[in-house]
């Protein structure tokens, strides 16, 4: 088939070459008859050159032979005869044939180079289009589509992309088993699992596939399988290099997209955090300033002569003060809750006398405890503990608050500070509503409030949760013990002091 085509082409070329020689002959005749030009044999080089350039070697040689014959006919004696034997003619023939060979060769290589250049240009523009598509891609899906199309275009065969087993939701999924040939399935699984970064596999009938990760660095971006057909080894290497180039660009873009997405997520999160922080900060400031005026004014009123002499008015002023204090406490809880949930509890630990913490907590809540019968049971000479005293005081105060809140006025509350093994235990016992087993289990969970008291007692369910966080930040724990509903409860903070040898020492007193 190919041979006949070539012969046909050569014959057509040769015919055209002869036509050109004929045209040259007409011109030669005119030159001789009317202008009397006698040395013009070189004019027959013209069809040889043209044929060599445009039609190839065979037509050029045909033109050379015909040209030499005709030039002998016109320009060499005996004129008007096809005698081919004069030395000048032999020289011309050789010259024409060399020109034919050189010209056709030059033209041929020129054509080849042009062809290569054109091909390169197409590749470059394809690659350029591909990278433009990559840089415009806003999702991984876009990138995968671009890879698939570009590679398919490049190798002119099938390209399949596989995901990374759900690690990245945007990558295409793995194929159903059995859809591809067994060796190809095995190769994909190998690359997927990271046993090899790239491999080639014969899928049967000499059909070679290249299987590799999209990114050489990570399996996160999935696996690609490219059908190369039956290609010779040298072409295979070339294709492989081009695939490498394409994929390294694509992987970089995927990486970039991934990082950008993570950055975006992080920025969104931190902006939300900042907003919340600013909001709570400003709200608490806005609430606390008027609270300070309310509470301060109430204390001034209660001391004024007019109010002081009327018990009912004094009590009212006291109510204003107490409620303002309670509100202030709630705001403090809100602020503390955000600190806890942002994990911003950084204990400033120092050695402290345990009873100092208990006394400070009771002192701050003396008005709220006024209705109860508070008794204290503290060991003298408790070991010093190494904690953030302010945090522990807040935690213990919360427990004291709860005892006052959930036990009837007039009932006893016992506050104790004891040593127990390697712990110092600060506890509050009340004879109030107690805890059911269920309530004990949920106590200290964020927003947990016992259903039995939700209607009768106000609260946010944050207090004990915050207390727990403050205590555990200091290496301690909170325990709750109750014999059941309405049987009172004991809530205690356990803080390790280590061993007596760990206690700090002080030099002799002068």
């Amino acid at each position, binding site marked *: 088939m190919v041979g006949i085509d070539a012969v046909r082409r050569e014959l057509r070329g040769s015919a055209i070459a002869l036509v050109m020689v004929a045209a040259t002959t007409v011109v030669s005749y005119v030159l001789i008859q009317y202008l009397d030009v006698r040395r013009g044999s070189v004019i027959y080089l013209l069809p040889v050159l043209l044929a060599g350039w445009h039609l190839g070697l065979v037509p050029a040689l045909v033109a050379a032979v015909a040209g030499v014959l005709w030039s002998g006919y016109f320009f060499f004696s005996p004129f008007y005869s096809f005698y081919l034997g004069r030395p000048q003619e032999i020289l011309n023939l050789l010259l024409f044939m060399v020109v034919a060979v050189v010209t056709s060769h030059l033209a041929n290589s020129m054509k080849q180079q042009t062809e290569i250049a054109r091909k390169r240009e197409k590749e470059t523009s394809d690659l350029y289009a591909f990278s433009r598509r990559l840089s415009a891609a806003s999702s991984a899906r876009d990138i995968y589509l671009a890879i698939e199309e570009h590679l398919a275009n490049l190798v002119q065969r099938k390209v399949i992309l596989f995901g990374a087993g759900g690690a990245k939701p945007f990558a295409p999924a793995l194929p159903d088993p059995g859809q591809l040939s067994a060796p190809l399935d095995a190769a994909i699984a190998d690359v997927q699992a990271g046993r090899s970064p790239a491999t080639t596999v014969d899928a049967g009938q000499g059909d070679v596939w290249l299987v590799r990760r999209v990114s050489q660095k990570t399996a996160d971006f999935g696996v690609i399988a490219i059908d190369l057909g039956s290609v010779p080894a040298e072409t295979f290497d070339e294709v492989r290099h081009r695939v490498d180039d394409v994929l390294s660009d694509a992987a970089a873009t995927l990486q970039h997209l991934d990082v950008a997405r993570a950055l975006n997520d992080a920025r969104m999160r931190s902006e939300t955090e900042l907003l919340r922080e600013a909001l709570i900060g400003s709200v608490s400031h806005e609430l*606390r300033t008027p609270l300070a*005026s309310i509470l301060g*004014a109430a204390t*001034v009123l209660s001391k004024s002569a007019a109010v002081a002499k009327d018990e009912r008015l004094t009590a009212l002023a006291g109510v204003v003060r107490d409620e303002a204090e309670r509100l202030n406490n709630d705001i403090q809880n809100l602020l503390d809750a955000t600190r806890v949930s942002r994990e911003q509890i950084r204990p*400033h630990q120092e*050695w402290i006398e345990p*009873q100092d913490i208990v006394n400070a907590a009771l002192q701050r809540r003396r008005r709220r405890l006024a209705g109860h019968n508070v008794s*204290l049971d503290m060991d003298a000479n408790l070991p*010093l503990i190494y904690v953030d005293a302010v945090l522990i005081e807040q935690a213990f105060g919360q427990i004291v608050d709860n005892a006052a809140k959930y036990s009837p006025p007039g009932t006893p509350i016992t506050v104790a500070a004891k040593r127990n093994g390697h712990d110092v235990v600060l506890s509050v016992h009340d004879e109030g509503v107690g805890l059911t087993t269920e309530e004990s289990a949920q106590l200290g969970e964020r927003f947990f409030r016992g259903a039995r008291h939700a209607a009768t007692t106000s609260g946010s369910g944050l207090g004990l949760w915050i207390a727990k966080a403050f205590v555990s930040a200091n290496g301690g724990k909170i325990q709750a013990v109750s014999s059941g509903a309405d049987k009172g409860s004991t809530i205690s903070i356990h803080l390790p002091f280590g061993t007596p040898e760990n206690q700090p020492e002080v030099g002799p*007193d002068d």
Partner: protein
Amino acid sequence: MTEANPVVLVVDDEVQIRRFLRAGLELDGFTVQDAETGSDALRWATLKPPDLVILDLGLPDMDGSEVLERLRTWSSVPLIVLSVRSNEAEKVRLLESGADDYVVKPFGMAELLARAHAAMRRQVRVSSGEPVVKVGPLTIDLAARIVTINGARVMLTPKEYRLLQLLAQHAGNVVTHQFLLKEVWGSPHLHDTHYLRIFVRKLRQKIEDDPTQPRILLTELGVGYRLVVPEGAVQAAAS
């Protein structure tokens, strides 16, 4: 100061706070001068030197601590800081830069007055050279270095006495850990808070009825210690 009413300069940008402070302080016998800004405060303090300054930390034109620092370059007027910050390090910093005491918002008038009177008494004691400090049942004769409880002599070691002496000089006001450690043990022990814990425990055993529930030598968590003046004594001293 004994005849005319003492003058108090109240520095706060919140009008409602100034209003109740004015009422409370006037009821207590003070003449009140208001200032809304830091620069106002500094001007008033120069024009009409007050006997007491009550300073809010959040001011529109400058931070309250800056007012304090500038004021302290030329005046030792008793000064109480109003703080909304429950930040102990900040309180310590303010005390170190010359505040006599602080109250945390929201606060009751009685608490503020107790701190203010204590600071003013200290001023009088320093200027008159009065050698005896009485804190409830406790009497500390700074000249004779004698400590008694209800007339009975209490024997103290030199460091215990030094500690009590420093607290007595600031009776009613808080004294920071750092100040006590520096004065009693020297700069190298500035962070050895446990020295204080141990000596305060010893001291309480000698001067308190129940050392586990102290009534005289109180702990200000995260800040320092305070020798507390019983409320009756405040009223007596003020009148």
